[in-house]
């Protein structure tokens, strides 16, 4: 039973990790906490739903199109909503993302109402049995995609020239501009990348969770908890935090009470912020003045 819960928790945690990863990338580069990330995730699922049902597009093509649409949407959001207020306080930037989240939910409700809809599973092969432990195809793919993406972004942001430029644009936008880096364009691209990450999460998760306008809300809270647990801005921390959150929820839900599942993420946020504000893998920033 314990093994089943841990395996299920890792599958569940991968979803949180994927969402947290997208938010972390954006936070790391722009220092914006995107409260609309859950809605971008939801929106991508509805884009696929529309393409599959209204235009009869093949699944794979619809998924690729959704990633592209979300990349463009993320870029437009940066250009139209975020850039004009880029010098505003963090609270104003955060509130803009909150407004965007409600806007996206409203748009989907106008188009599809509040009905619960479903996407066909992406993969129809049978679950894998590891002894008595059941591992669903969807879980395997989600876990694999999470590991691949985190490895890819780790290399991109920590080991490449692009990563160094990203760090420069974050730490000193003016300095980065002086050496010829197009900082606004860079931010626009990273908004697009983060939104495309939300699309990947949506593509993997929507067949399991079903589609409805509020589907992003719960996942977003879990992703925040994962980021808090792993350390804000830390890519590996976001993934480790997501996986830990998933396993913690499953174990607490089974061995303590199912009522614990819903509050586990809030308990994690409170405990981590009180005991280790930088998270498990985050570093305390010290500025010498």
């Amino acid at each position, binding site marked *: *039973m314990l093994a089943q819960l841990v395996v299920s928790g890792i599958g569940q945690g991968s979803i949180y990790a994927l969402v947290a990863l997208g938010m972390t990338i954006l936070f790391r580069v722009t220092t914006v906490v995107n409260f609309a990330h859950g809605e971008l995730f939801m929106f991508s699922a509805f884009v696929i739903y529309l393409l599959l049902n209204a235009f009869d597009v093949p699944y794979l093509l619809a998924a690729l199109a959704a990633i592209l649409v979300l990349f463009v949407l993320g870029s437009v959001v940066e250009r139209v909503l975020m850039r004009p207020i880029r010098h505003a306080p963090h609270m104003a930037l955060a509130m803009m993302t909150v407004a965007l989240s409600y806007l996206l939910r409203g748009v989907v*409700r106008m188009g599809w109402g*509040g009905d619960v809809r479903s996407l066909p599973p992406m993969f129809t092969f049978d679950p894998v049995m590891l002894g008595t432990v059941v591992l669903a195809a969807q879980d395997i793919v989600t876990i694999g995609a999470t590991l691949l993406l985190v490895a890819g972004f780790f290399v991109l942001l920590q080991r490449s020239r692009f990563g160094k430029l990203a760090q420069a644009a974050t730490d000193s936008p003016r300095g980065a501009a002086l050496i010829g880096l197009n900082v606004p364009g860079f931010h626009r691209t990273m908004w697009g990348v983060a939104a495309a990450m939300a699309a990947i999460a949506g593509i993997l998760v929507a067949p*399991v969770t079903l589609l409805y306008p*509020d589907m992003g809300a719960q996942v977003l809270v879990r992703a925040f908890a994962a980021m808090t647990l792993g350390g804000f801005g830390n890519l590996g921390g976001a993934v480790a935090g997501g996986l830990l959150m998933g396993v913690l*929820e499953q174990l607490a839900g*089974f061995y303590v009470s*199912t*009522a614990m*599942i819903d509050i586990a993420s809030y308990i994690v946020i409170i405990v981590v912020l009180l005991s280790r504000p930088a998270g498990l893998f985050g570093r305390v920033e010290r500025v010498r003045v």
Partner: protein
Amino acid sequence: MRMRWLALGAILAICLSGGAQAADPGLTKNSIKIGVFGPLTGPAAAFGKAQLGIRAVYDDLNEHGGINGRKIEVVLEDTACDPAKGIAASKKLIAQDQVFLLHGGSCSNVVMALKPDVIASGVPYVVATAANASITDPVAPNVFQTVATTATMGRTMVDFAMTKPDAKRIAVISHSDEWGKSGHDPALVELKTKFDLTPVADVTFERGSINATPQVLQIKNANPDFVLAFLYPAEYAIFLREASKYGLNVPSMGSQAISIQDTAQQVGNPAIMKNVYVFYPLAAQIGDAKIARWVDIFTKYNPGVRLESNGLLGMGGAEAVIEALRQAGPDLTRAKFLAALDNLHNFDTGILAAPLEFSPTHHAGMNGGATITYVGDKLVLIHKFTDAQK
């Protein structure tokens, strides 16, 4: 002094005679104004289809000449399933639009929030599809429910589960919110008092959750004969998928919030649906000739709106309103209308699964319901578990 008393007497006489003849608000010689409200937008907009069905019944009545020489004038308001908006909508309908009666509310939290003001106003209020038992318990003289309450649903679900041969081990999964508890708690009381049983597993599954592994494994460990699920549609579909994944292959029954056709589509596996039963509040399934009249009315007045059971559920209440208006006669008053509703006995609406039964001390009118399930690839209405096995 004497003149003063005479004048006072004359004023009193005018008031009394005038008061007896003055029409209640919302009434003219040719019209009855009814305030219809519900969640037309927002997360619970799917439940708002009930209001479209109610309006369609009144539109159809108007097209056939109205009632006692009057036509129904509907004023429609949106609550978005938000208590604050619900209170604002009911106050507007009562004070500004001056409706004769209110007919609306599909979210129990909204109805519970606006109920005190409506009771104080004395305006007759027929609840659309909100099902929380606390809405009409305790009874208020002007508030009536025309769908099965969550308590009735919970008890009926237990009674159905216990028609399974040798059923002894009942498990329960529910949301922990007010809606979930309002079905869960009466079900447990019914299980204890009528069958002397306690559930072998009693777990919660919160709204918006996307994984039910701990719940399913706990229930599976308890080895139940039957699972009662007080869950909303998305969560019930997720539970069914996970139950199948972990080999929990026992019958389960969902609440009246569930559309079995939608669930079948969401689950995407016909084999899972063989073990699924759903409390069904309508007299027949959509497509059956028995309720074709209401299906036709809904689609005629709501072109382009996808019909599901929610759209038909409020229509029984509209039929009850029309019947009470008919019985109250041409000299209509609110008092006569309320008295007519209080005396509505064994009223077959034609669309609901059970007749409506009101009295001055009982305003939850629908006291039963049917069960719907798939037998092969066909949907059938049944009343006993064993009927589905035949």
